[in-house]
């Protein structure tokens, strides 16, 4: 997740990472991680706090003054839950497509590239 400051908009964070900030902490699938008091009612969260608590690496480009908060590494596996995340990407004509629109069908996602 690209950050222009270390104060992260809570709703943007939840939408982007699918971690839900609740009174019991940050929750995803069956996992809940305690957060400092007040986090669940705050509109902004501190990126360093999220990085420490959720095992999300925080890296920076000092010249461009941009940070990148990586995915969680808590469980040591690429997936935290088997529930498919929402995936919203443009199609090749530029129109946004949501993976959730395929609910009700079996879906095969497969990558390719021109290189």
């Amino acid at each position: 997740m690209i950050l222009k400051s270390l104060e992260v908009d809570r709703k943007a964070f939840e939408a982007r990472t699918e971690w839900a900030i609740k009174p019991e902490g940050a929750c995803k699938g069956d996992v809940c991680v305690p957060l400092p008091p007040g986090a669940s009612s705050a509109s902004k969260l501190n990126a360093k706090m999220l990085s420490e608590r959720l095992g999300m690496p925080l890296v920076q480009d000092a010249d461009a003054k941009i940070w990148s908060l990586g995915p969680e590494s808590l469980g040591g596996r690429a997936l935290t839950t088997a529930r498919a995340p929402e995936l919203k990407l443009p199609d090749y004509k530029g129109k946004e497509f949501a993976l959730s629109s395929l609910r009700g069908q079996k879906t095969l996602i497969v990558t390719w590239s021109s290189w």
Partner: protein
Amino acid sequence: MWQALRNELHPKGLEIVTVALDVDPDAARQWIEPVNPNHPTLIDSAHRVDELFGVINVPNSVWIDEDGMIVRPVEAAWPERAEQPDWQKMADSPDIPPEMRETLQLAKGIKVQAKEYTDALRDWVAKGKDSNFALSPEEVVARSGPRGEAEATAAAYFELGEYLYENGHRDLAPRHWREAHRLQPDNWTYKRQAWSLADPFQGPTQLYDSCWVNDVKKIGAENYYPPLDLTPARGK
């Protein structure tokens, strides 16, 4: 590559979503437009699927059931083909430049398990939850590939580089992509993307101290894709 399989399996309840990992969408589009696909054909410049699912190469796949549960995590994937792909025919042609010949000849050593993969896919489409190839949520997570601090940091650096590349700072991207390569050397999407933007033929450049041919030779072409683990789900 997947259109024939889509035509066969869509009437049986499967949709195929192809995801192009090109940072430059125009590069992908020139291949897509002539095909005029009838299924979702997406472009993932930031390699979001690496972060979300653990994709590390192309082609890699994920299976998701009707309820939105992942039943097979990332693995290498190939459709069965009636005939040899064009690039394999090119490998033996006398007309191609020597550097390309080396790349293509090396690529011929890559192990592809198209029949096993396609048979498993057909089995799942026919049997759903009763298929031996549909895994439980716990197994899906367990088989989903490693993500420790190194891999997660690689994803952070790749995204940082891509954002800078696309937002007026092309010169700042390579240093972050080099870090991504160092931290997760078996993520071929991060490497090939960076190499191809430096040199379309992905030969050695000064920007990156690696290139496709050298990195594949180090591990052996037969190890380019981890072998499929088609062992049945536990309890089946």
